[in-house]
């Protein structure tokens, strides 16, 4: 058959590429993989679109999240953009807050950077479980008003919340530091075993079952109380 394209034989096939195209391509690849990992996690861990906050369940979800992101090269910009994707109703058909927060925490804990800042103040959705198991040597700054279980299971990291945190802030933390500039909700420090929580605003209530650690309000130690 006649080659109807022969006139274009001399046109070089490779076109000029600027760094933008590489950056965008790389970013898209990472975002696709992050999304894929998240959707797999949701499929595996969330049955009937219900996810119960139960210690063993949380642990299992976190492990699954960590294995989903293994070998993935990403940075804090990717994490921040993934937050935006989670916030965007079109990007994901359903966002279940618990696993989403745990997945984000797994990303944060396994990121190369030691200091991570996430601007979450303009998102419509509320993120829970951020800072879950934040390890020693990591600093996480969260801007905006957050949901429940912020800094849960914190193990040595430094979590700064420039905004408010919901209930069960610092639940089950074993070490490290949580600083909240706004208020925290009920059961702050429930099942706490070590570390410190500093709250600049009001505290809705303290967890009753505590096994260690300290809670400060406006610089003043409030838990354990001197009388305890």
């Amino acid at each position, binding site marked *: 058959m006649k080659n109807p394209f022969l006139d274009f034989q001399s046109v*070089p096939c490779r076109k000029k590429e600027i760094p933008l195209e590489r950056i965008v391509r790389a970013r898209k690849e990472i975002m696709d993989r992050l999304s894929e990992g998240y959707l797999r996690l949701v499929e595996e861990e969330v049955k009937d679109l219900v996810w119960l906050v139960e210690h063993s369940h949380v642990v299992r979800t976190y492990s699954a999240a960590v294995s989903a992101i293994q070998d993935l090269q990403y940075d804090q910009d990717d994490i921040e953009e993934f937050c935006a994707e989670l916030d965007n109703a079109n990007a994901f058909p359903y966002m279940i807050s618990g696993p989403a927060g745990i997945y984000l925490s797994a990303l944060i804990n396994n990121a190369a950077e030691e200091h991570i800042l996430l601007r979450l103040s303009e998102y419509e959705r509320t993120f829970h479980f951020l800072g879950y198991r934040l390890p020693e040597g990591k600093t996480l700054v969260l801007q905006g008003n957050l949901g429940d279980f912020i800094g849960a299971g914190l193990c040595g990291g430094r979590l700064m919340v420039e905004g408010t945190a919901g209930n069960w802030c610092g639940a089950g933390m074993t070490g490290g530091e949580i600083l909240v500039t706004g208020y925290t909700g009920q059961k702050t420090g429930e099942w706490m075993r070590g570390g410190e929580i500093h709250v600049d605003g009001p505290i809705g209530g303290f967890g009753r079952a505590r096994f260690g650690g300290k809670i400060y309000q406006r610089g003043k130690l409030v838990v354990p109380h001197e009388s305890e």
Partner: protein
Amino acid sequence: MIEEKRNNDLRKVVWELYAYIQDNLYLNRPDMQIKGREFNSALLMSLLTGLCEGKELIIGEPGLGKTTSAEYVCALLYRFPLGTIWGSEVSGHPEQTEEKIIGRPDLGKLNKGEEVVVWSHFALLPVKIVDEINRLPETKQSMILDGVDRGNWEYLNAAIINEEYCLFATANYQDRGTNTIVAPLIDRFDVMVESKHPGANLAYFIGGHGSNGVRLRSEELEAEFHSVLSENIPYPVRMKRLDELCDRFGEWLEAQEGIRTLSVADRREIRSSKRSLPFDLDFNAFLRFVVSELSFCHHFGQKRSNEACDAGCHFTGYLCNAVRNCVSNRFPISARNFSQALAWLLGDEEVDLEHLKAVLPFTLAHRTQWKEEVVAQREKEQRSDPLEIYMAKQAVKEMHRRYMEQAGEVKNALAVACRIVEGESMRPVEGDHPIYWEIRRDLGEEVTEV
């Protein structure tokens, strides 16, 4: 070098002719700009039609110079006195017959039982003018189809083939006395232009001294032309004698009016150097791009005038969704031919996108059947062209803009396709525009998903 000089000289003659007609015979305003030069589209297209043996349909209000502009161009480009041209014109009316258009039996011979055809001047002359073609009933339009297409005229058992010819047909806008021009015939026209009103100030001069074409008449020569045309001699001999007369008329024009004109050899030379002008890659890619938009249908495989595409088709933004018919194979031929002629006239070394862009609306206007709803959107818009030409101009603008945006990708897709056909293992470039889909089809891919 000599060739280039000769070419420039011929070009100069054509420019002189353009200027002479514009200044003296066909007074009209410029209405288009190409590479910084202003032109009157009707005059420019007529000139190109004459130069490249094309076929032009001239529309317009009665009395706005449709026929006369064609007559002037023919007289000066082909060296025929105006009287001879008038004698060869076919005028469209319902009673027109094959005998008046093509030829008739020689009655004297017929009575002696011999079958000899007397050819009409229309069939014999290389310049053919059909006045008010849309007043010819459709069956009679078909009668001139073959002749118009190939220069091939048949009557009884005799036939002649014109070696060189061009056709100008005029049409009024539709009124009580007009028929539609049959689709196969209209498609055979390379271009359609409108002969516009020149405006009050130029109109004031029309018909005044020196502007009525009397200068292009020589009664003596016209009589000689008539006698050669009426003689019963073999066609090639007759044409040779006509050429001699044409040259004499050319000399007469130069002596009387100081106008240089073109001989048969000159026209042949022009056509040959026009044909040798290469098309640049953007011309090539853009023409494919245009054809793809006007012929592609994802749903039915190609456009067909009896199949309407669905509402909500993915390709809604492209022209394939706005037109009813499929563009014919004659369209790219016209576009290439006229673009080359324009490039030659402008003295350019390559035929480029701007030549194509200038020519496209006139090659598309009569060939495109728009959907009713598309016409409804446009018909009341402010414009200076008749609706068909205006819509074609808008369509070309739209496609051109789309092309400018993705020219690199289109050329790359075509280059990749070339390599694939040559056996390289590559993936065809995917894109939204119909051209990418057409490329993939040519590469044998079953393209069904959107």
